[in-house]
């Protein structure tokens, strides 16, 4: 089937999409946007987190057809040209990126958290990130990065 949707502000189209395919596959394999990662394909890890009509979802659990006509923002859409978004810069500066596999999903999730709550408490940060797994950092640097990003955005 043919699908069309808006991704990072651009109207995109793909042909010969399999009807049972996920939005994650569509983004990575057909639209050339490999930022969102595929680590579990079962909603457990959050590395595929993207905005769908303004809400953060696991792209691996959205059928491509369900995204037709909708607006998707991926990690590729966070930076302003060459200028990293403050959340991205904070992750780099805090050392919150090791292998980096979890990072795209975390960036989108933290971007959303700070858009809704400019100064979250630690408990709220942990709750907001409960669906994003990181096997490398032990999360402390990630929490540092979120606090730092909140400061930069304030």
């Amino acid at each position: 089937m043919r699908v069309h949707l808006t991704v990072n502000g651009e109207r995109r189209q793909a042909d010969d999409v399999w009807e049972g395919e996920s939005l994650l596959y569509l983004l990575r394999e057909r639209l050339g946007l490999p930022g969102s990662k595929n680590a579990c394909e079962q909603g457990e890890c959050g590395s595929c987190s993207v905005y769908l009509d303004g809400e953060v979802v696991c792209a691996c659990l959205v059928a491509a057809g369900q995204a037709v006509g909708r607006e998707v923002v991926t990690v590729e859409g966070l930076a302003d040209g060459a200028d990293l978004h403050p959340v991205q810069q904070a992750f780099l500066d805090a050392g919150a990126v090791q292998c980096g596999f979890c990072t795209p999903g975390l960036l989108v999730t933290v971007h959303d958290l700070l858009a809704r709550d400019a100064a979250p408490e630690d408990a709220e940060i942990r709750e907001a990130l409960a669906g994003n797994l990181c096997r490398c950092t032990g999360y402390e640097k990630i929490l540092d990065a979120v606090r730092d990003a909140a400061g930069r955005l304030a």
Partner: protein
Amino acid sequence: MEFLAPGSWPDALAARAENPGAVPIAGGTDVMVDLNFDRHRPDALIDLTRVGELREWSVAEDGTVRLGAGVSFARVMSELSALAPGLAMASRTVGSPQIRVRGTVGGNLGSASPAGDAHPVLLAVGAAVEVESAARGPRAIPVSEFFTGVKTSALEPDELISAVLLPAATGPQQFAKVGTRNAMVIAVTSFGLALHPEQGRVGAAIGSAAPTPLSAVDAQDYAAGELVDLWSSRGELPGGVAARFGELVAAAARPIDDVRGTAAYRRHALSVLARRTLTWAWDEYRRAA
């Protein structure tokens, strides 16, 4: 495979009737996992996310909340915490924020897992599942008759779930769940409780400790009997009542040993959850005086 995207409820019912081999998809948090792992390849998907009617909820004059099958857990938490506090508490424990934004109460019922977190509370409040087919129109199935076995339900192949009907809360409600961490856990066991002061009734139901979600009937009757003179006085819960209630809840379970826990642990955990939640709910009822 086909992808059907009905834009209205009548169109969705027609698509269901015409495509017996199709699988409806709402939030996709169960359906997509099956597709991604190639466990199941249906003839077609019927996308319900464009059926606006399913995302609405309303309250009738008699206090019945009609919750569209497509309302997400995230919305139950933010919009229904006063009318359906138990369901809102249960919703808060589902998966992660990403899962709660997509996952729906209708999808929870559609999957009919014994571990579905909406189910114990829906049993405890005495909810009904409203289903409909193009051929026979709508009918309401009491939740107590909805679950027929492990992941099977009374939903007919040509029917869709339109809504859940539940009475607006008239007293405190609780939900508690045991798992290995706070987020992202399938319940080892879970428990839902609802006080119905105006009826002198206590609803109590168990999740993840029997082939289906289950009401703890003896525990409900026992609690109602012990509380009969206390609803109006809002007196203290007599010593031993909460503990005995917990024992009766544990006795109602029919748990098995599996990867998430042993049967003995599930029974023990249930007795603790039931004792605690009855105590919390009764304290809340007394404070509300």
